[in-house]
């Protein structure tokens, strides 16, 4: 039906019609469950990724916060447009980079706009991801998916740059931490592409580092260092999380002291009581 309208009236009308029809279908799902709990998909998905598929998925799963055509919603929608208090920034011009970052990390869709996006399972298939990314990229000119090359970069330079720009939030061994109001994620299950995207996009509270601040060569070095932390040099033995004194104190009290208490019990005497 929407294809017919597209053919007759052009893409924009087609999109609106599509959005309207899928919204009608999708709203039922959206209204009952937070977007996290269910992805609404078209009943018959095409075999290949396409902007069309992306548009359909967007309309069903993202438009309630990001607005029709990704224009953003900055005020609460009128009651009746679904129980989801949808608000979200405009996605026009964010490009494939941001879309790929948020979607591939599972940050989006976000069920509650007051909650922090967290890395989680990606509920879209690869094809659906690609489609969504293409669609968001088509909303306006924006940065594409970066292609970092950390292999030849300097590990030492990466360590220094990471210490200055990143460790304040992400901890020196990229174990993550806390900043007032949010949790900072560890960086051990992210790809080089995702790291590059995050540095350029600045997801959630994270600062956004442009090429003027961290050049692409420097970014490669930082990525090399972050990937290195996945197999960081723990030549001293069991790394106990690379967090420093907290697990060390636990080992002293929960392994060291009990072993020594056992030693005390072993060497004590037992007399026959007089």
């Amino acid at each position: 039906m929407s294809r017919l309208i597209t053919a007759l009236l052009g893409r924009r009308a087609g999109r609106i019609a599509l959005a309207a029809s899928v919204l009608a279908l999708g709203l039922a799902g959206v209204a009952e469950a937070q977007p996290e709990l269910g992805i609404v998909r078209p009943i018959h998905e095409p075999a290949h990724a396409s902007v069309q598929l992306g548009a359909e998925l967007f309309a069903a799963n993202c438009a309630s916060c990001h607005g029709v055509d990704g224009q953003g919603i900055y005020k609460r929608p009128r009651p009746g447009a679904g129980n989801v208090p949808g608000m979200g920034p405009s996605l026009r011009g964010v490009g494939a980079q941001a879309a790929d970052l948020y979607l591939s990390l599972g940050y989006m869709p976000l069920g509650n706009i007051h909650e922090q996006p967290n890395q989680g399972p990606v509920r879209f298939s690869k094809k659906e991801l690609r489609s969504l990314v293409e669609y968001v990229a088509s909303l306006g000119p924006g940065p594409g998916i970066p292609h970092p090359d950390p292999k030849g970069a300097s590990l030492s330079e990466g360590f220094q740059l990471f210490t200055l720009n990143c460790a304040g939030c992400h901890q020196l061994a990229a174990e993550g931490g806390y900043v007032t109001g949010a949790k900072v994620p560890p960086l051990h299950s992210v790809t080089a592409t995702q790291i590059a995207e995050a540095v350029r996009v600045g997801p959630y509270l994270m600062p956004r580092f442009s090429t003027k601040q961290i050049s692409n060569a420097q970014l490669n070095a930082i990525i090399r260092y972050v990937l290195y932390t996945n197999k960081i040099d723990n030549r001293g033995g069991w790394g106990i999380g690379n967090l420093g004194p907290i697990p060390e104190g636990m080992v002293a009290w929960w392994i060291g002291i009990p072993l020594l208490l056992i030693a005390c019990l072993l060497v004590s005497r037992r007399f026959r009581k007089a």
Partner: protein
Amino acid sequence: MSITNGRRRDPIEDPVRFIDERTATSVLLRAVMRYVFPDHWSFLLGEVALYAFIVLIATGIYISLFYVPSTAQTIYHGPYKPLDGQTMSAAYRSVIYLSFQAKAGLLMRQTHHWAADVFIAAIVVHLMRVFFTGAFRKPRELTWTIGLLLLFTSFLEGYMGYSLVDDLLSGIGLQIGYGVGLSVPIIGGPLMLLIFGAPFPGRNLFFSRMYIAHVFLVPLLLATLIGVHLALVAARHHTQFKESERTTNKRIVGAPLFPAQAPRSLALMFFTVGVLFLLGGLVQINPVWQWGPFHEWASENGAQPDWYLGWLIGALRLMPSVDVTIGHFTLFPNPVWGGVFFPGIVLMVLVAFPWVEARLTGDHGVHNLAQRPREAPNRTAFGVAFLAWVFLIFVFGAADRVYVLVGLGYQTLLLIFHIAIWVVPIVLFFITRMICRNLLASDIAAAAREQAEHEAIEHARALAGARSRPG
């Protein structure tokens, strides 16, 4: 056996005679060999701390032969690639060298650090044993005071030890120490300038000073305090539990140092040394190559001091934003509450406790018998409450990692702990006291029952004996 000069030649007596003829120590030694050790495993905790101290000295001497106490800047070129080409102090460089290029160097470093953590933990466990058994009472108040001085001195010693490495993590700790020092009322500024030689990070001289303090001055103090502590324990003899008819406040029953206790204490020493080396080899501690060199303009998330200063970071984090000013002058900058007053109060309460307890109970007698915790309900309850107060503040020091692990927000935790650190100790006080009293009552009831049964049996026997006698 051959006989010379009217005395038999004996492979053991001959050297003993040799030494005594030149030192006149036989009488002393003979008495020492039969010094009495009462029996309980919990009386060995202080020994564990002592053996950890010996490991600290031994490993400390070794690593001090590699360490360079200088902040002169140098550029690293060595096997650890992430540091290659980085500017760092000679001190940090020397520790990286020790960890990577000196065989067994990392083992000695890690064992030294584990020994420090375990040493202080053992002192705390030992302190709790002494407290809850009332072994600090007259005549052992001075021993208790010296023990507390040992504990707090070892905090300083450990802090200086890991700060000497000049890595980013410990350097942040030094920066905080400087901030806490500045906050000492009125004299904090001049005092810190004196110690550091200049505003932080101070002149290069500061590291030399810290080095001398850590390897010479404070170990000398610790060794002296330990010596006096042990001499006092030996002079008054150890407390004991009342385990038999013969143990009384005046009479100590136990095993002699030689030959019964000596192999046990030696075994404990080897176990302690063994556990510490096992930790030093198998569990990584303070991997300074991962922290990078210190820069005063850099920091990292989740920076923490070693565990024994965790109560201080907890206090610093918990304290609300309160500076006390008089006009333009700042009398109490914020860090003074958590960094100076809080540990000061804890130390004072602990030092004063024997005297205050004697005053409040009116009991100024000599006590050589150790009590079971239930036998002193008020003291045990107070101890539990005080410990809970300090422990909760300590736990909050790690609240950011708790948040990351468990998801309970830091700000939420802050609110909860603001209340909990007062409410929980009070509640625990009353609960503990009630439990002690109940246990005591049931002990007395059980003893009374036993006594009654015993008397009944005796009575029955007497009756049977009377009936069976003729006439």
